């Protein structure tokens, strides 16, 4: 038994190393005083300084933030409605429409929306990207909210009605506060997904619009420079912060059982 668990631990440790080593290398080299991401030369913050002087990068970050806020806001409202509806009612079309965008390869949604926007003569840009992000974020929010609904005692809503609340009042005073952790977790998830999305953005952004992932893409297509490491490190920090907040709001989100 002991021998077996030692074997397991070794295998698992290697797997964890495989998961984390690449990210650690990105972070470490962001402080490396060398243009080449090859060996450690010395500590510097130059790459971060360069990053904050890079106006294109700042513009891209601003765009990403704007799209992320709008997309997560709208998709949280729509996704919460979808999650509640999927839990409460017997529906055929909604679950399919909510879950398929998550189930199929991202590129398919990207090209379908590209044709759609172009056919409607809709100018590709921030708006088309935000509309696309909302469409795929709804599903993620809906899944989290539906799970939260399943954990809620349905008789609480009846109790609220029994106490004289209209359906809307019952929702505002009872259902919403109780599913709020799921809604917030869903919102943070949608924000992260939107900020990070590359594939769908790539097809729906058009030529003139740049988001952070698009900017990173064009930088690494040209050359590997530690400036990318610096922006990557900052993005990871942001994601980590969001996850910490989400886990504080909704501990069950990260719980194994």
């Amino acid at each position, binding site marked *: 038994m002991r021998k077996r668990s030692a074997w397991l631990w070794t295998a698992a440790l290697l797997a964890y190393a495989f998961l984390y080593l690449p990210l650690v290398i990105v972070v470490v080299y962001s402080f490396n005083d060398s243009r080449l991401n090859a060996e450690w030369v010395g500590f510097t913050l130059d790459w971060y300084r360069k990053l904050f002087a890079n106006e294109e990068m700042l513009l891209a970050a601003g765009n990403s933030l704007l799209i992320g806020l709008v997309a997560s806001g709208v998709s949280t409202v729509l996704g919460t409605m979808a999650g509640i509806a999927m839990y409460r009612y017997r529906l055929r079309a909604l679950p399919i429409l909510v879950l398929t965008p998550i189930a199929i390869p991202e590129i398919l949604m990207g090209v379908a929306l590209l044709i759609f926007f172009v056919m409607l003569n809709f100018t590709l840009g921030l708006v088309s990207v935000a509309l696309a992000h909302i469409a795929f974020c709804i599903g993620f929010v809906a899944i989290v909210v539906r799970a939260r609904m399943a954990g809620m*005692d349905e*008789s*609480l809503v*009846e*109790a*609220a*009605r*029994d*106490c*004289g*609340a*209209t*359906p809307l*009042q019952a929702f505002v*005073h*009872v259902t919403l*506060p*109780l599913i709020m952790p799921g809604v917030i977790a869903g919102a943070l998830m949608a924000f992260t997904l939107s900020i990070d999305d590359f594939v769908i953005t790539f097809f729906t952004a058009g030529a003139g619009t740049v988001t952070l992932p698009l900017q990173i893409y064009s930088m690494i297509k040209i050359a590997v420079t530690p400036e990318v490491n610096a922006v990557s490190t900052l993005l990871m920090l942001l994601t980590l912060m969001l996850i910490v907040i989400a886990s504080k709001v909704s501990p069950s989100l990260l719980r194994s059982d």
Partner: protein
Amino acid sequence: MALLEIQDVTRRFGDFTAVDKVSLSIRAGEFFTLLGPSGCGKTTLLRMIAGFDVPDGGAILLDGEDLAQRPPEGRPVRTVFQSYALFPHMTVQGNIAFPLKMARTPAADIPAKVEEALADVRLTGFGKRFPHELSGGQRQRVAIARALVTHPTVLLLDEPLAALDAKLREEMQIELINLQKEVGITFIYVTHDQTEALALSHRIAVMNKGRVEQIDEPDRLYGLPRTRFVAEFIGTCNLLTGPVTGSADGVVTVDVPDLGPVRVSAQGAQATRPEGAVAVRPEKVRLHAPGSAPARDNHFTGAVTGFLYQGDVTVYMVRSERGHTLEALLANSGSGLAKFFEVGDAVELSWPADAGHFIDG
């Protein structure tokens, strides 16, 4: 004039008829119980009175007004849920104030009303706690306080004591009786527990398979069951069935296979069908040593096949000569005496005609 009229109410779920043409009338100030096994339709009926479910047929009238178009929030009816359904994100105060806020009670009046409701259920000082900080019995009382704070016309209670342990359940039963007397509101109580129903209610409707079998006061339900189902569901009962062979001078004779002819006072009941049943409660059956039984209307011999010692009483299983098993109950009133008979003892059974109860059909 009845406060709540239920007229021919029917509710179907697909092919299953949960409530089948039920009619009841419940008086103001009454403690009324819907009693029956699980799946008998009692909870569905309660949910239709509360407004959570809508009848497929029939009508529910409160004070003469048809409730069909009224949503739950528009009915002067409150429910105490089986799970209590206290809002976990609100304090006890918040829970009790909730119906007041929904009824647009002026904010200044709310604290006093909440305090009053807390005092009614003996929970003064618990207002700032959250439901998860309370015991089961305390949660139960908060649920009742929340339901009563707006003085509804009818209070519905759905198996409210099911989650409590036996000792606490008995205490709560007495509290419920006193509370109902104090507030004078009509209680409609749902339970599958017949002892609870007998102890609490003014009147009981026994339900089976979506239909009402009998509506009566507890003592009449126990003493004069009108159907076999009621006789067997309420308490334990020797149900002796067979063809009706005679009916004269107010005494009906039923010829029970494996036992013999059983005589029973008709007490107003008519034998209209060829088959009938005699219900005899175990405590009405007398047990005697052989040869010592007094002459009675019903007299049989048999042997003890087993007994259950229950402390205050002992239940004996007696097999008659021809093979029918009856239950007889003897109080262990003599000091130091645990039982009168052993397994295998020959005994005589007897009971007068008026100790049994005749069920037609």
